[in-house]
């Protein structure tokens, strides 16, 4: 049986076979035996060459998160690799900047008007979440093309807030 995984975005191909009381894994030309037990829905006990690992595994939509020795590893299938989008801004081909909400929150102030020129690092809007204000800034000089939100609105992460047009 063969599997292909992206582990923290790096491609790995592994084959698995039964051998004695363990599983035989082959990856990148090397092979190793693992004695694996399902301890609970979220915990696996793995012994490889006498070393013991307790892995916590959590399944989320299109990926698995494996927590091991204080670190999380993201396991995805090739092709399904979702982009890690944190919100912010996105530059389109047409020379526009789409400013989106970086996290779920409430728009508490819009500092600019449509048609207004903005300079680099100027604060465009303020989004509050968990009692902290977060300033949304322009990354370069531009003109405010359209405002897609209003003061007081509850927004989700990645919600389009403001469109800017770059100076040509």
């Amino acid at each position, binding site marked *: *049986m063969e*599997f292909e*995984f992206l*582990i*923290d975005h790096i491609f*790995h191909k*592994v084959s*698995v076979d039964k051998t004695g009381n363990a*599983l035989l*894994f082959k*990856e990148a030309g090397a092979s*190793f035996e*693992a004695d*694996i037990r*399902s301890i609970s*829905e*979220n915990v*696996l006990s*793995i012994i*490889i060459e006498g070393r013991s*690992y307790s*892995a*916590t*595994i*959590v*399944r*989320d*939509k*299109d990926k*698995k*998160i*494996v*927590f*091991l*020795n*204080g*670190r*999380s*590893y993201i*396991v995805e299938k090739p092709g399904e690799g979702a982009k890690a989008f*944190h919100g912010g801004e996105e530059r389109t081909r047409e020379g526009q900047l789409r400013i989106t909400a*970086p*996290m*779920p*929150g*409430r728009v*508490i*102030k819009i500092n600019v008007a449509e048609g207004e020129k903005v300079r680099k690092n100027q*604060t465009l809007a*303020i989004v*509050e*979440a*968990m*009692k*902290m*204000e*977060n300033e949304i800034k322009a990354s370069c000089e531009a003109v405010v093309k359209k405002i897609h939100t209003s003061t007081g609105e*509850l927004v989700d992460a990645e919600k389009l807030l403001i469109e800017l047009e770059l100076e040509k």
Partner: protein
Amino acid sequence: MINKILIANRGEIAVRIIKACREMGIATVAVYSEADRDSLHVQLADEAVLIGPPPATDSYLNMGRIVQAAQAAHSQAIHPGYGFLAENADFARLCEKEGIIFIGPNSNALELVGDKVRARQTMEKAGISIIPGMKSIPKSVAECEAAARTIGYPVIVKASAGGGGKGMRIVGEENDLKPAVEAGMREAKSAFGDESVYLEKYLEEPRHVEFQVLADNFGHMVHLFERECSIQRRHQKIVEETPSPALDDGLRAKMGEAAKKAMQAADYNNAGTVEFLLDRNSNFYFLEVNARLQVEHPVTELVTGVDLVRQQIRIASGEKLSMAQNDLRQRGHAIECRIYAEDPANNFLPSAGKILFVKEPKGPGVRHDGGIYSGWDVPIYYDPILAKLIVWAENRDLACRRMTSALDDYAIIGIHTTIGFLKDIINHPEFRAGRTNTGFIKRYFESWGEKGKDPGMLRPVLAAAAFDELNPAAHVQGAESRPSRKERFSPWQSLGKWRIGGI
């Protein structure tokens, strides 16, 4: 003796107070907003009362609703926790008027120390050094500008009410003053319901050292030694410890006496903390009084063996303080790490959302004060603190090792948290050497990213992933079912169907 307490708070601190009450045989009433029906404090209390919609101003800051809930439930007392109404003198006064015991200082003392400007005046009069700054609340931005010129930049904007870094802004030059004052006012308003701010000289890289004080209603007072809280980000404490590596017994005794003097000057009762800034030459300046139970109270509890919540309740019940200053000793070393729902690799953006899985650290000397669980949806409306991990050990080095080990065991999956960041702080050589100050994070952790992963872990990770794929059951129980779990658990759909079927 009090036999029922309403806890006017949420999250880990509400859970902490509920546990203390239960052990004292006191019934508890939780209050909750519409965003908190599933929160842990609601589950653990004996009674639970819905007090309003999600925004804190409509719920946890709504004095009328809270007092009404206390009266309806026949609670003799209200514990305000920290934040929200904890340092609101109007609320304390309202409780006094309605015959409800407010578990905290009397409203006069609260008003005095809660008004940071008046507090500074009082302390200066009592002979305690204070930091240069404004001695009254400014009426206008222009007044701030004038004062800032006198004090000299950099200055710091501070909310007169409350604490916890909310409303604070450091300003290096006059151009930035107006927006900083305005932002500070908005944050202060939203956090404490009071928009007053003032300016103080900004001291660079001092240590933040505070003293815990307990005072009963009969004039007896003790201090429970210091907490070093220098590890701060945006004026928000994130790691606290006791004893402070900066104090020797002489300085400790001197600062402890100053703390008690400050509290006496304010005619203070119940639990409170006197915050000082300590410079490199062991000069200390009064900063402010935190007139409440503090987030970091557990480190004091572990090192002194005194349960501060229990003491608060005893004092509020009119009992005399059962300990004298000479009875108190520091034993061993305690460290607290605050676990926030923030993304430390992405400018500490708040990270609300569903916690898919929590694995809490445990073991000898490990304490976890938390308000979280696997499957809980962290709401966007409140402070991002999720939990506190506190360790005690025989000395500072062992406490650091225990903390590292506990952080390694701590998994919160589904949202971003500060766990990895905290681990790197605890293991930083300057932290391990005890050389901490309020500039520590800015200096060493300005742009933080998670360290490279251990390549030795690739094999077990691959093995775990493949094994999980081999196991079809995992997919039924996990992935696909999870996003819709809540819906599937809802009885409405099912009930609907049956009613159509007719019963």
